[in-house]
């Protein structure tokens, strides 16, 4: 596994995420979020989960990001800038980060290198999905349908 690649991707991801969290302009934040997502997809590639990476790009970049910018467009009227102002939130977040760091460094078994594994093919995933995970799959289908309908109902204009 390539350390250079890892570093590059980690910087891309974290920078994108941080930008998404603190940039005053919503639209910039959303676009930076896309960068963070792309970085995450890179992580997945790096970890050998190509399929997840592709799905990540497909879903987040192709769908969620588009949804977000669309929503921004539709609710844009007010003010476009939003400066981060609540230091309390930042403090909590920082505290959690420190806590997590402490927990991660506290655990010794984590400093392991990746074992060599067979590449995970799409076919393997498909087979597991259709056998062991067929019920979750169906449930997710139902959830997605419900979400689709729910979202439609929510944004449907009230009849006058």
């Amino acid at each position, binding site marked *: 596994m390539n350390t250079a690649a890892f570093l590059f991707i980690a910087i891309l991801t974290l920078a994108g995420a941080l930008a998404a969290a603190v940039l005053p302009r919503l639209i910039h934040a959303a676009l930076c979020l896309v960068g963070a997502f792309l970085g995450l997809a890179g992580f997945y590639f790096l970890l050998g*989960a190509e399929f997840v990476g592709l799905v990540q790009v497909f879903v987040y970049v192709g769908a969620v990001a588009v949804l977000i910018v669309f929503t921004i467009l539709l609710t844009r009227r007010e003010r476009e800038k939003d400066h981060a102002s609540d230091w309390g939130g930042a403090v909590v977040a920082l505290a959690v980060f420190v806590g997590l760091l402490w927990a991660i460094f506290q655990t010794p078994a984590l400093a392991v290198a990746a074992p060599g594994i067979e590449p995970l093919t799409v076919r393997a995933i498909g087979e597991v999905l259709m056998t062991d995970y067929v019920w979750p799959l169906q449930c997710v289908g139902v959830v997605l349908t419900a979400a689709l309908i729910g979202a439609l109902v929510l944004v449907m204009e009230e009849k006058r």
Partner: protein
Amino acid sequence: MTPTLQLFLLVSAALFCIGLLAALSRRHAIFILIGIELMLAAANLNFVAFWRFDPQPQAPTGVMVAIFAIAIAAAEAAVGLALVIAVYRHYRTTNVDQLDQLKG
């Protein structure tokens, strides 16, 4: 030196806290959603990383969970954004500070 699990976890933790930061400190509803998406992504990264670094990798459980989580997150985003639009239509604002009708 190759990246260890610890590194991935660090990235994940950072990602999570950035998400938390976004969700806590911003006033615009969409930022909160962005923060939540980031936190979910961090969790996903954890799943996949743990799967990859499992000493005896067998069934791709972590991958599966990640895939399902992505699907659910997409649904969550759709509904959440729809809510934002609905709220905006009704209150003409997306500032969550002003959306406090539910206070006790």
